[in-house]
Structures are given as C-alpha cells and as structure tokens.
C-alpha cells in the first residue's frame, strides 16, 4: 500500500523507494510536487496531507524530511511510527545517524529498508531481528573482502 517512501534533505532527494511501477518522468514529477508541498508546511501543522487520491505522511528529523505516500484508508499514525522505526534502525546501525551517513552509505540505507519493509508493508517490526539480519550480511561482506591495491586505497580508481 505504501506507494513510495523517500527522504528529502533541503529540497534534495536522498533516497527514494517506489512500490508501484511508474515511469521515470512520472516519478520525477511526483517527487517535485511532494517535496514542494512538504517543504511549504510550517511546524505544528499536522503531519498528514491529502495529495491526489493518496495521503502523504511526513515527519521531520533535523534537516531531513521522511515522507510516505499511502492509500487513503491506511492508518496515518502507524505510518508515522513506521518512519520513526526506520529512523531508529538507521540510528542504531550507523550510531547516531546524520544526513552524510545516508549519502555515503545509500546502499546500506536501502538494505535496511528492504529488511524492514517489503512491497510497501512492514515485514519485520522487531528492531533486534532487523539489525541482526543486517549485521549477518555485513559479516558475509567482511569475510569476502580481500586487500586492495594501494591505488584503490587512496581512492584514485
């Protein structure tokens, strides 16, 4: 049901995830519209917006806005808490997460999202279990890493 979930920093899209098939142009248009609407909101306003036939649920964490577009009959409050739980997961994983973590480790942010939400529905709401799954994957990763060349180490390739 969750059509998209994305994270916006100062009008820039940092991460987006779509749970319906749309063309790239449509996606860009929707992103623009939603960013505009959400950034125009003042503090203390309610966290829900009607947009086309969907509802936008958003929450601001420091400089980042997290938004979900959900169907009309979806539960708004639980969607807010979906956002919060995702932020908690990021926070736990990166250790007090900031925008830079998400920019430099965008692929990780995606994995965490996939472990938590799939096809627009919460897959696993236990924080421990999600983090354990991600950590296990990281273990696999570290085992697989071989030492790299000097050139690579300084980041020239």
């Amino acid at each position: 049901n969750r059509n998209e979930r994305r994270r916006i920093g100062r009008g820039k899209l940092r991460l987006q995830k779509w749970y319906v098939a749309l063309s790239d142009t449509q996606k860009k248009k929707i992103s623009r519209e939603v960013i505009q609407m959400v950034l125009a909101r003042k503090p203390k306003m309610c966290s829900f917006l009607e947009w086309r036939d969907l509802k936008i649920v958003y929450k601001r964490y420091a400089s980042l806005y997290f938004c979900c577009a959900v169907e009309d009959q979806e539960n708004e409050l639980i969607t807010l808490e979906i956002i919060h739980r995702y932020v908690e997961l990021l926070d736990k994983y990166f250790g007090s997460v900031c925008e830079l973590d998400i920019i430099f480790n965008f692929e990780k942010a995606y994995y965490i999202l996939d472990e938590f939400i799939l096809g627009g529905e919460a897959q696993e709401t236990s924080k421990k279990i999600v983090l354990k799954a991600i950590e296990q994957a990281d273990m696999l990763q570290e085992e697989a890493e071989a030492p790299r060349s000097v050139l690579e180490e300084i980041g020239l390739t």
Partner: protein
Amino acid sequence: MPAVSKGDGMRGLAVFISDIRNCKSKEAEIKRINKELANIRSKFKGDKALDGYSKKKYVCKLLFIFLLGHDIDFGHMEAVNLLSSNKYTEKQIGYLFISVLVNSNSDLIRLINNAIKNDLSSRNPTYMNLALHCIANVGSREMAEAFASEVPRILVAGDTMDSVKQSAALCLLRLNRTSPDLVPMGEWTSRVVHLLNDQHLGVVTAATSLISTLAQKNPDDFKTSVSLAVARLSRIVTSASTDLQDYTYYFVAAPWLSVKLLRLLQCYPPPEEGAIRGRLTECLETILNKAQEPPKSKKVQHSNAKNAVLFEAISLIIHHDSEPTLLVRACNQLGQFLQHRETNLRYLALESMCTLASSEFSHEAVKTHIETVINSLKTERDVSVRQRAVDLLYAMCDRSNAKQIVTEMLSYLETADYSIREEIVLKVAILAEKYAVDYTWYVDTILNLIRIAGDYVSEEVWYRVIQIVINRDDVQGYAAKTVFEALQAPACHENLVKVGGYILGEFGNLIAGDPRSSPLVQFHLLHSKFHLCSVPTRALLLSAYVKFINLFPEVKGTIQEVLRSDSQLRNADVELQQRAVEYLRLSCIATTDILATVLEEMPPFPERESSILAKLKKKKGSGTVSDIEDSRKERNVNANANVTSSPSSDLLGLGNSSAVNSASPPTSSHAASLLVDVFSESLPVAALGSASAHVIEENFSRFVCKNNGVLFESQLLQIGLKSEFRQNLGRMYIFYGNKTSTQFLNFSSSVVCPEPLTADPVLDGGAQLQQILNIECISDFVEAPVLNIQFRYGGSTQNISVRLPVTLNKFFQPTEMTSQDFFQRWKQLSPPQQEVQKIFKAKHSMDTEITKAKIIGFGTALLDGVDPNPSNFVGAGVIHTKTIQVGCLLRLEPNTQAQVSTAALGLDDLHFSESLASLFHTHL
C-alpha cells in the same frame, strides 16, 4: 568523507561522492559526472576483464549518479553479471541496481529471472531473501509469470526459515497486486491462513498483510481467518507489555500487527458465531478502555502507537455499524481528541467522526460536538485541519442544526483559504437547499454566497437557485425583492447580475407595484450593470429586457431604444447582435398575445438530482473532497462507478418507470387515485407478472431499522443505498458500482411498485452512476417496491431484481408522550382490530441498548419512564401517508429468561396494524 564506513569501504565510491558534494556549481557537477561516466564506460568496454570488486564499485557509482537524477543507459549487463557472483556483496549490489533501475529489456529479464531462480533454489536463506526482495521490488509481469507458483511453495513449505517466509509472503502480496490473474489460488490458501497461528510474530505480521489483500478479493476463500485473527488480537490486547519482548513498541504491544489484524477484520461483516463475536467485542472494549488509562510514557511514539490501534479499532466499529454502545463510546473518545493539543489527533478525530456521523446509531452523539467543531473552524491554524472541520460539519448537518451550520460556514467562507472555497460554496449550497424549511432562507443564503465568494460560485449553484425559485411560487416575490435590493450595491458580482437578471425578467412584476421598484427603476438598475459584464451575462440581460417588454408594456419604448442602439445592433459579438436584432423585431411586429405566449414565464423544471451535488461528487472523484457519502463502506461503489451507458440506453428509465405490479393486491380503497407520477402523460402502464423474476431480498431486512448500506453485491455489481424519509416523503439514493474492469452496456433500471407508493427514478446521464428515487407513501402497504436492473456484460444480458427497503415504518415520525397520555390512549384502543399482539422468540440478543436502538431505528420515539415496569420498552409515533396520518403505540415486553418477547401494537387504523406488526416482529 563518510562519517562512518561499515562493512566494505568502497573508497573509490566515497571519493567520487565527496567530489560531487564539493562541486560549487551545477555545471561543475555535471562535468564531474560526465567524466566519471566516460571512465566507467571505457572500463566496461575495455579488453581487460574486470574483477567482481571493480564491477561492483562501478555499478554502485552508476546507481549513485542515477539517484542524483541523471539518466543511465548502460551498465545493466554488468549488474546482471553481479547477480550470479558467489560473493554476497557483489550479488547484493547487483540486486539493488536491478531493483532501482528496472528495465523491461526482455533479454535481460530472462537473465535476471535465471539468476533469481538459482538463488531461490540455493537453500541459502540470505540469497533467497535477496531474490525474493528483488521480485517484490520489481514486481513486473514477467517476474509474476516466472515465479507466481514458486513463491507460494516457499511460503508454506515446512522447512522454510522464518525470515524467508516473511519475504515470501510480502513478495506474493506484491505479485498479487500487480498481476492477480497470474497468482493461482488453491491448495495453499488454508495453509497461509494458518500462518496467523505462527509462533513468530514477524511471520504473523507479514502473513496478515498478505491475507488482508487476498481476502478483499476473495472473501469466501479466507473466511476462516476471522476467528484466527480475533484470537490473535485478543492475545495481543490482553498481554502485558513485556510479554511480546521486542514486538512491544514504546509500551504498546505489537501495534503494527494489531492494526493489520483490525484491517483484516474489516474485510468481513461482524462474526456470526456468538463466541467469536463476544471475544472481538471484548477486544474492542479493551482497546477503548486503554485509551482512557494514563499514558505509560510521555513519548509521542507511545501515544501514536496506542492511538493508531485505537483509530483502527474505531474504523472496525464503524465498519460493523452494529453495536450502538461501541459506536457511542467511539464517538465520545473522538470527542476528547477534538481538543487535544496534538494537531495530528485533532485532524484524525475530525476525519473519523465524519464517518461516524453517517451511522444512525452515532449521528446524534456526533452532533453534540458541534460547538467544538465550529470552534476549530475558527481557531485551527492548519488549513488541512480546517478542511476536516468543514467536512464534519457537512456530515453532521441535519434539519435541526442546518441554520447554525450554514451560518458558520458562510462566516468562515469570508476568510477561508482560496484552495477550499469552491468546495465550501458547493457544500453550503447543498445544505441550504436540502434542509431549507422556508425558501426565503435558502434564497438569502445563496445570495450571501455570491456576495462573499462570487468568484467561487460555479454555474451549477446559480442555475440551481433559479430552478428552485421557478419551481416554488411561494418564494418568487421574495426572491425578486431580495435580488433587487442586492443589486443596489455599487459593486456587485457578475453572478449576482445573472441571478438578478433572470429572476427580475421572470418575476419583476411581483414587486413592480412598489414605486421604489417600478418597472423603469428595475430596468435602469439592470442596465447600469450591463457594460461591466461579460458577453454571456449581457446575452442573458438582453433576454431579461425582452421579457420586460412582455411584463411591462410601459417600458417597451425605453427598451426598444436600447436594443436599437449601435452598440447592440452592430455589436461585434454575433450572439449579442443576433439577440438584439431578433428581440427588437419580435417586440415590433408581434401582437400582445403572441408576445405573451413567446415570453411566457418559464415552466417548472422537472425535479432531479441537484446539479450541485453531482458537481461535488465529481470533485470528490479527483480525490480532493471527502463527503458524507464517502464512508469507507461505500468506497468500492464510488471508486469504480464508471458504468458508462450507450446513448440509446434507457438511462432515465422513464418508459417503464412506474409499471404496476399487478400481482400485489390492492390494500386499500384509494387505489385508483394513488399512482401519481410527474411523467404520467406518457406512461405505458405495463403489467409485470409476479412470477417474472426471482427477487433478491437477502439484505432487505437489514434496512428495516437503518437507512444506509450495501443492498446487493455480486461479482459484477454492487448496489449501495442511502435514503432519507420525512413524513410521507422519501428520497433514496442508489449507487451502482461496477466491480469489473469492463464496461456495462445498455445499463437500465426500473422500479416496480405496488400501488400505494410512487417512485419516479430520475438518473442524470453521463458517468455518474447514482440514481435518485423520490418516494411518496400514499397509503398502507405490505409489498415493498422492486428494483429491476438490466445491463449487458461480456455479451450476455444480466437481469437483477432487488427488493428496495421501503417499508411502512420509514414513514414514522416519532412522538413524545407522557405516561398518562400513553395509557389513556392505549385503553381507548379496541382489540382485536386496533391492537395486535404477538409473542415471538428473540432472534438477536436481548441487550437493552440494542433493543432501544432498534426501536428508535424502527422510527418511533422511545419513551423512557412511561411503563411502570422498567424492563419494558414503550414507543410512539405517527405514520404519515399522503391521505391520512395514523398514530401508533408500541409496547415490547421482553422476557429474558425465556428469550421471548411480547410485542403489542396499538393503532388508530386497523389496516395498518397487520402490516406493521409483521414488520416489527420479523425484524426485532
């Protein structure tokens, strides 16, 4: 540099990202990206085979570039290669790239599917999950074709790991959403339902989402999920907050799962089995009770999670619409939220109350909050909350509070946000018309609307006021006087000029006696606005002038002069020129008689659905408006209501609209004069045999004590009803919802009714499939009318006959009475003709509150403290028919031990007693 770099640090990627971030201008960024793209392209094309790590790094860079908003047209092949890598990180990046940059290139799809297939059969849970996530993220048709039978197998296999089960469940959900035809239902369904019993709450959470989606489409296949869901919910709501360990979220036990279970239950009617129903009611009560407890934490997450469950429980209560106590409790709870300091809660409470307002059981309870809602209209700082307040006022409006609500909406309109003005204008216009007791108030309201928000008053609104003024001669003089006064304002809105021109042209004569509004004064007043108006308004004014020539021969000369002037006769606009020429000519050559015939007062408009209502609904269709009709139950009807009709079809149903059912015996002596129809001149009275078609009545009984709901539902069609009755008149809105994706052709409907009722179906053409029946009760009747529907679907003609829930008790007006009056009258009745007594076994539980609600729903007033025995119920009301009014007294003596009730009805007229008694006892 990254603040934290976990796992593999792809330094090259990090450096690239830093470079991009350091770019001072957009141009510099594009330059840097193009350089990188050229670099990657050459690496991919180079002779030297790249190792997995490099491939992964470059694919990841491409992904980053894409996420910045640039197009990527290569690298897909390399990403697909990564899928078959045996290194986890490489596979992961490959899948991520595929998930984000879906490409329908068929060659690649085959390769991707192959890789997925390998991973699914790898028996490595991490790989299986990656593959399932990819299917769920892409969800394309090709993938559904390849995996729609494999995924359910994984889901129900005994040896599948929990995490894989969760992924498989949601993966199947996605495939079912995108290509339902490819996902086979079958032997696995019952095993999926049993996942609700799984030990692992994560599995239950994922499975509940899947089952909800499937159950919406095939409720019968998943019926067994109801009892399991209730059991599961009950265990959650009664658990201590520590029982569920990590599934407890800020002291709330498994909020996500609870919400999902409550959603699943909304796919079904209330459970029939008493034990399950009782357990569910307990759960809902517990949730309502918890809302009253002091919070266990001050964190907003705690209150959000707790209230998320509460709101979902309230949705379920509204969906069931059967437990008056719960509905009223829900309403009180929401009432508390209306003044909560959290904006979110105020918003949601207003929204949720809107649906409560449409339930008979809670409408009155909602109305008690009117002052708070009006206050939020005035004080809320957030326009979306104010919008909800407007919606709620609209939903709670009825005859008793219409004046207050309309006044408040009008005063809000003066300062309302531009974005919602038009909608408010429509709502005010509808309420003013619907609940107008005297039409002078209606006319005042609409003129106020034009004054306050003229630009937002659409054509439909001012057309409608003219229709109503023309149809009601008691208001014409007042309307003429009022528009005349309004036009005195130095600057008035063009819409007012239109209404004024039209009304004075028709009814100016009614105020011409007063020298202050003599014909000449009226004319000069209108003409003083002429040059400020647009062409269509000027054209309308010209017509008003020629009507003046007929009404007031004394101003003929003046008007002819105006028509003759160059600015009219030689006007550049062809329409204006033509009108001027023709009207001038007509006034010169026609005799007074001819003039009087041609320019006669407009005939009354046929009664039809308000064009404004249609407009509001159209607006709602675009998703911007929520409306009374927009209760969750009716969503299906509205969402799919695109039944189009071919132009030749008998949409109006006039031809056979009032065919008389010859089978029903005339129940009264007034029969001959009873069939009154607006269109009676052209009516062939076709006799329809009683044996003609099977009449569906299964939902009929549900409507005896209520007015709204779903009357009929099949795989093709859903018919929803909203009706309202007042004295001997009724109006029924029928909503036809096409549940299929194809069109119904030649859609037509007709109503067959026994004599004492008349119904004229009028259906606006076009896409809106709503039909309105106006109903009048002429005398006593037993047989309810039948709605026949015919349409073509997939080459075959479908015939459906449904009995419309128009029963005698709908025409009740409740009457309050003192105990003394009641028994005095009761004693005056002479059995057996005037009193009917029946003893019957209670079909439903004999709960006091329910019985009370049913008696009120039946239409009589519930008289408290009248009967000396407090367990007895006493009611009184008057049935209105066109010809007579019949008083009715009612006593119900329940005997709880024997589950038997004795009902006695006393009536002034013996004809009525039998029909009413049978109604009463069958449905109570």
